[in-house]
């Protein structure tokens, strides 16, 4: 409206903009719109249906006064830290080992990757069964003659979250391995030649040269693992139902149960708003770093 050149500006690259409409709609309507909607309703006393009954910060007061929420956050912190550390470490280790011109690379790779094809429900049930104290691993080792062997993490509140971790790693590490392998294969042959000429040991080459070169790969892997960690829900429901006690409760499950078991939408929305805040704390610095300086991926 202000100037005649304006429409031209808008029309430039029109096809691209039209093609982006689904993405723009998803981003604005679903991700931004629904998020704002949720944040707004977290200040209400909504029960089974979203209702505009303003209660201020009551839901947040209650949230942070609830043992189960605090325990859920702690559990997620333990699970998230271990999951991130172990899946990156194991994923890299497996990729590096597969990258040694070994025989049967395809076989090993398929074995490491297949759990990723299974749903969390399947993974949870299987590991519940594997870790069952009367039939599972504990019984197997005892049948081998080690009568006093004790390994029943899922029945011990102190260890249950690590039982879930075993299942989570089993399912998720394969994808990290594939991504890492892709990164290793993208490293120029000359890097290895040069390192060998200089007599640098292989592990030092990995730590000081290869891993720094793989920064974008690590970013991709970290994003994928982090989204899976924050959303962890089905696995817990299938494997432990959050038990024993509250030992494996996680925030996403708290949100779900507040919404549908307690039929207190406001409380569920407040909890999910807190989760969003934590996501923002991680994501915003990363995206500024990632996209802020450069025009785009080129």
């Amino acid at each position, binding site marked *: 409206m202000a100037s005649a050149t304006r429409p031209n500006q808008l029309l430039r690259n029109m096809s691209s903009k039209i093609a982006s409409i689904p993405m723009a709609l998803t981003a604005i309507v679903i991700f931004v719109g629904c998020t704002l909607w949720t944040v707004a309703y977290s200040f209400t006393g909504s029960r*089974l*249906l979203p209702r505009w009954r303003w209660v201020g910060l009551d839901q947040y007061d209650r949230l942070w006064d609830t*043992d189960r929420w605090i325990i859920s956050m702690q559990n997620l912190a333990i699970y998230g830290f271990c999951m991130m550390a172990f899946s990156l470490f194991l994923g890299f280790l497996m990729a590096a080992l597969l990258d040694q011109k070994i025989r049967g690379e395809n076989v090993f790779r398929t074995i490491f990757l297949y759990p990723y094809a299974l749903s969390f429900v399947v993974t949870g049930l299987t590991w519940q069964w594997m870790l069952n104290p009367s039939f599972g691993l504990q019984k197997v080792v005892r049948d081998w003659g080690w009568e006093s062997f004790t390994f029943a993490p899922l029945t011990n509140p102190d260890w249950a979250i690590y039982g879930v971790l075993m299942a989570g790693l089993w399912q998720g590490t394969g994808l990290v391995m594939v991504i890492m392998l892709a990164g290793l294969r993208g490293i120029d042959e000359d890097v290895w030649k040069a390192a060998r000429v200089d007599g640098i040991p292989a592990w030092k080459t990995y730590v000081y040269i290869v891993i720094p070169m793989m920064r974008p790969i690590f970013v991709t892997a970290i994003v994928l693992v982090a989204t899976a960690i924050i959303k962890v829900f089905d696995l817990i429901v299938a494997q432990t139902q959050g038990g024993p006690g*509250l030992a494996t409760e996680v925030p996403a499950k708290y949100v779900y149960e507040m*919404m549908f078991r307690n*039929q207190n939408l406001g409380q569920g929305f407040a909890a999910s708003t807190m989760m969003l805040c934590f996501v923002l704390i991680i994501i915003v610095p990363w995206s500024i770093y990632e996209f802020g300086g450069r025009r785009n991926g080129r």
Partner: protein
Amino acid sequence: MKHLTKVLATTALVSASAATAAELEVVHWWTSGGEAAAVAEFAKALDATGHTWVDGAIAGGGGTNAIPAVVSRLLGGDPMGATQFNHGRQTEDLIQEGLFLDLTDLAEQEGWRDFVFPSSLLDSCTYDGRLYCVPVNIHSWQWIWLNNDAFAKAGTDVPSNWDEFVAAAPALREAGVAPLAVGSQAWQQAGAITEVLAVAIAGPEAWEQVNVAKDADVAAGPAYAAVFEAAAAARDLAADITVTDWNLATAAVIEGQAAAQIMGDWAQGEFAVAEAVAGEDYTCLPGLGVNPVLSLGGDAFYFPKNSDADVEAAQLELASLMISKEVQVDFNLKKGSLPVRGDVDLSAANDCMNKGLGLLADGKILAGANIALSQDTIGQVNDLIVQFWNSDMSAAEVQEKYAGIIARAD
């Protein structure tokens, strides 16, 4: 009234021509053996009218998976024919939205108030003077189930109250029987403690002050201190056996691995499926033998509003069937619960059901916690109790936190 009679008459006429047979999709979360057998009675009755029962069972205790599906389908304008739902205050929102069929005319026509006993059952289905759901049974938490053989094996008499049971526990343990089976699901532990032990030990009056009047001082007082002391003892007695689902705990009692289970009368359905005989194979004690009362819990069905007149006719027909004499008897015998009618003949009722009917006739009844408290409060209590049950939290600490939840209850 006249109008409705006309509508009913017309529908009766039309359904006689068999052209209006409708399919009714019914959502529920009754998937254990006894539950499925009971719900089959509803289906059989509906199918006999020419309509078709389409079973929409969604497994997951307490409807955790079914409720999101039900609510989103109601919101999304894709209503099912009928759905089980927690009745009470939670549904106010849905009723205000006009999502449920108003059953008041049908109920007046058939005179539900005259035969539903106790008639307070209809109150939790009523909002603003209109009736929106059909109560189908009375479930009471107030029972303990005992395996007679297990006590014989331990060389003790079958206990007649909680204290005798606690006293028999060492002998049971010596005989290799776990004294108490309690599943790992939160609601099982919470029900056993805040409903059954609380009524038995603190007494019905104290229980009502806490759960109906929401008096936090009583919850923090000496009567409830004894409840949580007993709960700590029960926690110890239940340590010998690990089970998950309530019916697996019942199965452990039926098979004699465990001697007892504190569980509502729905456990009886499992005994029936296993062909165990009340009084011979197993014994049931209402109110733990201390304070025999019934708490009036139960299930109810709602009928979402539908644009199709044929479906609506079928909905009213199903509502009418669910509360009819024959179906009430058939359904409740299978389910192990008590009928909602005072005028049915339960000659087929077994020992345990007769005990329950006797209490009902004597008016020894309490409001059910799932009606007295909101789902939100019940959920918070469940979270607290499951934490207590799986840790070494002291009785004093759990009592203090429990009183806090009651103080905040709405």
